[in-house]
């Protein structure tokens, strides 16, 4: 009786294992459900502000450093200020895009 039981339960286990693995793979392949960033409105506003300012800081920093090395004050600083501002706006656009995806609940996990 005991001898009989062991192969039966191990076969069952194999079946269950395969089923579980299939399910797991399905979950992995399946579309993502909760993507993006959620949070309070204040936190989101803060995030947008940081995105905008950080790009501006990097742009101005690069411009200032290049000017310092090449001795072309103040032209590269002005140019990279504009680049930084554009990058900041692009950062904000991307952040809001993610937020929109998260809100709709049908995000495809980015592009």
């Amino acid at each position, binding site marked *: 009786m005991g001898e009989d039981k062991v192969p039966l339960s191990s076969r069952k286990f194999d079946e269950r294992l395969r089923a579980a693995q299939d399910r797991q793979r399905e*979950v*992995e*392949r399946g579309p*993502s*459900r*909760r*993507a*993006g*960033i959620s*949070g*309070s409105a204040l*936190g989101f506003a*803060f*995030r947008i502000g*940081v*995105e905008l300012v*950080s*790009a501006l*800081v*990097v*742009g101005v920093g*690069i411009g200032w450093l290049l000017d310092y090395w090449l001795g072309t004050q103040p032209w590269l600083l002005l140019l*990279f200020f504009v*680049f*930084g501002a*554009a*990058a*900041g706006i*692009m*950062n904000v656009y991307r952040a809001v895009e*993610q937020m929109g995806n998260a809100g709709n609940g049908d995000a495809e*996990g*980015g*592009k």
Partner: protein
Amino acid sequence: MASPLEQFEIKPIVPIEIGGLDMSFTNSALWMTIAVVVITAFLVGGVSRRAVVPGRWQSAAEMSYEFIAGMIRDNVGPEGRQYFPFVFSLFMFILLGNLLGLIPYSFTFTSHIIVTFALALIVFVLVTAVGLIRHGMHFFTYFVPSGVPGWMAPIIAPIEVISYLSRLISLPVRLFANMMAGHTMLKVFAGFTVALGVLGGWAPLLINVALTGFEVLVAVLQAYVFTILTCLYLHDAIHLH
């Protein structure tokens, strides 16, 4: 009255100096060590029983694992699984740093920009390395998205590079500013409580109770935001938009 900024002071506990560099074991380092010890105890203790039906502790440990595993699956995809150890360690370290900092008389190491900047630098270098190793020189097409006309590339490329580099600032500043502002606010209202005395001190005390609850939310949320942004950056590096 004590300054509300006094809590951020770094104090050496064991002074160590190597080659003119101050490498003392500070209160900041002490709380980092405590965070690592607590995480290790939490996870090792949680899975030591390995019950099929988990108890509360094992359940909590498994939930933290599944939370990050799910986050990576949803935001990075199946390829992201190999980065799980890194993302999980990062999340737990920041989370514990934020939460341990809420204990009175403790020290919040995530309220120092150099700590959060170092963490962001690790993420930045890793993400860039992953992109370069996976795609080689092809990685640099990330900065010139497909469909951009040739004459626009000299304008788009610097903007994209700046946008990419700005992660190195926005990621640490967000965490550090939230933690520092929150903790300063707590101490300011605590100072009001003392200053207004027995009669008027109740109002700021009530606000402080509410703020402490809010700070717990911020602590968890900022650890989450830092981690999910790491996941999104990894996704970008693996899939190049």
